[in-house]
Every structure is written in structure tokens, then in C-alpha cells.
């Protein structure tokens, strides 16, 4: 049997990759996909801990967090579409109107 810490390490690696993507990429679509990657990594550690502690609460929370991620994807993509319509670009470096 695989120790639970291996699953948690895979989850940590995926989360860090996702965080690097959110911080370094400029394409808003890829930023959104990196965000999905981070959410998935957290789901994996939820399931791993549920297995370790023999408690199905972790599975319920994965269920809820997948729902939240689906809602986030729908609203996020709608926002990207609206931004693209208004500005003809989805480069997040060009979307700095509210910075000052």
C-alpha cells in the first residue's frame, strides 16, 4: 500500500505548479486553468486525509468544492468574455484600470 504522505506530496506539487501559473502567466484563460489546478490539488489532499482518518466528511467536502469550482468556472469565463468584448484583449497586464 502507498503511504498517504505520497498522495499529499503529489497534491503539494500540483498546488505549487498552479500557484506559479497564476503568478507568472498573463493569459487570463491560463490563469483560470491554473486556478482549477490548485483547486484539484486541494481536493486530492481532502480525499487522502479522508482515507487516513477513515472519515467520509472529506468526500462530502470534495463534492461541495467541485460544485464551487464549476460555479467559479462559469462566472470566471463570463467575466473573461465581458472583458474581451470591452477591451479586445485578455492579457491581465493590460487590465490595470483599477490599479490606481
Amino acid at each position, binding site marked *: *500500500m*502507498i*503511504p*498517504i*504522505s*505520497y*498522495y*499529499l*506530496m*503529489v497534491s*503539494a*506539487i*500540483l498546488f*505549487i*505548479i*498552479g*500557484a*506559479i*501559473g497564476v*503568478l*507568472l*502567466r498573463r*493569459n487570463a*484563460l*491560463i490563469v483560470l*486553468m*491554473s486556478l482549477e*489546478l490548485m483547486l*484539484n490539488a486541494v481536493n*486530492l489532499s481532502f*480525499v*487522502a486525509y*479522508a*482515507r*487516513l482518518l*477513515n472519515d*467520509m*466528511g472529506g*468526500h*462530502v467536502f470534495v*463534492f*461541495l468544492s*467541485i460544485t464551487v*469550482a*464549476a*460555479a*467559479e*468556472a*462559469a*462566472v470566471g*469565463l*463570463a*467575466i*473573461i*468574455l*465581458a472583458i*474581451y*468584448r*470591452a477591451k479586445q484583449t*485578455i492579457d491581465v497586464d493590460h487590465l490595470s484600470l483599477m490599479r490606481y
Partner: protein
Amino acid sequence: MEAFLFWIFAIVGVFCGGMVVWHRNPMGSAIYLVVTMLCLSGFYALLNGALVSVIQVLIYAGAVMVLMLFVIMMLNVQAASEEREGSLPVWIGAGVVGLVVLVKFALLLQYGKPPEAAEEFGTIQGVGAALFSTYVLPFELISVLLVVAVIGAVILTKRRAL
């Protein structure tokens, strides 16, 4: 067999996760993200999470990624730019910082093999019973969130000028 499957899923999943961030074209990133999600679904199956494994394939790899691919095709942003975003030192620096955080995690997370799973662990009966008894309030509230998200998405895309 379990170890073999674990390493296959781990290597393919992490490689494709890296490619999501590294690939220049959003379309390629989305395809790699689908593969990562399928690998995660395999992890859930290895961890006795039958229901979440199926839901991962249906909702994530199915519904959410189709929505994402649909928007990528609809926007049809100019073909992949030649120059990579961010210079190479920035990427290497980010990788080094990530590795340091990872080593810290590895020192912190020292768990052994899991206990023997119960008969109903992770099945539809088991998770369903927990969902409709202990966690019934969050389950009902999540439906409100879904309604809000649907209305928000429709209103955001309908308005002409932002």
C-alpha cells in the same frame, strides 16, 4: 499493482500539470488539464473514493473543461505569441521557491499507510448518507450558490457594454 498505478498517475499527472502552466497556447493547456484531472480521478479511485472519482470525470473533465474549451474557441485569441511570458530567470526563481516550499512540506507530512477501509467507505451509499444527514445544510446552501452563479453568468454575458 497499486504502486504501479500510483506512479503512473503521479508522473503523468505532474508532467501534464506542469505543461498546463508551461504551454503557450490555451488550447494545449486545456487538453493537458483534462489529462491531469483524469489522473486525479485515478488517485481518488486508489484512495477508495468511488463516488468522487466518477464525479471528477463527469463534472471536471467533462462539463467544466468543455465549457473552457468552448470559450477558448469562441475568443479565438491571436495565435500563440512567439515570446514566452516572463523571462527565464523569473521561471527558474519561481521553481526554486516552489522546491523550497515542497521540501518544507515533505518534512511536515510524515504519514504512514492508511488503515483498512470500511465496507461502505467512499461508495454512493456511504457518501450519500453523510451528505443527507450530517452535511445537509451545506448541501442545501450549495444549491443557492449554483443559482447565483447561473444568474450571474447570464447577466454578465448579456450586457452589451461593460
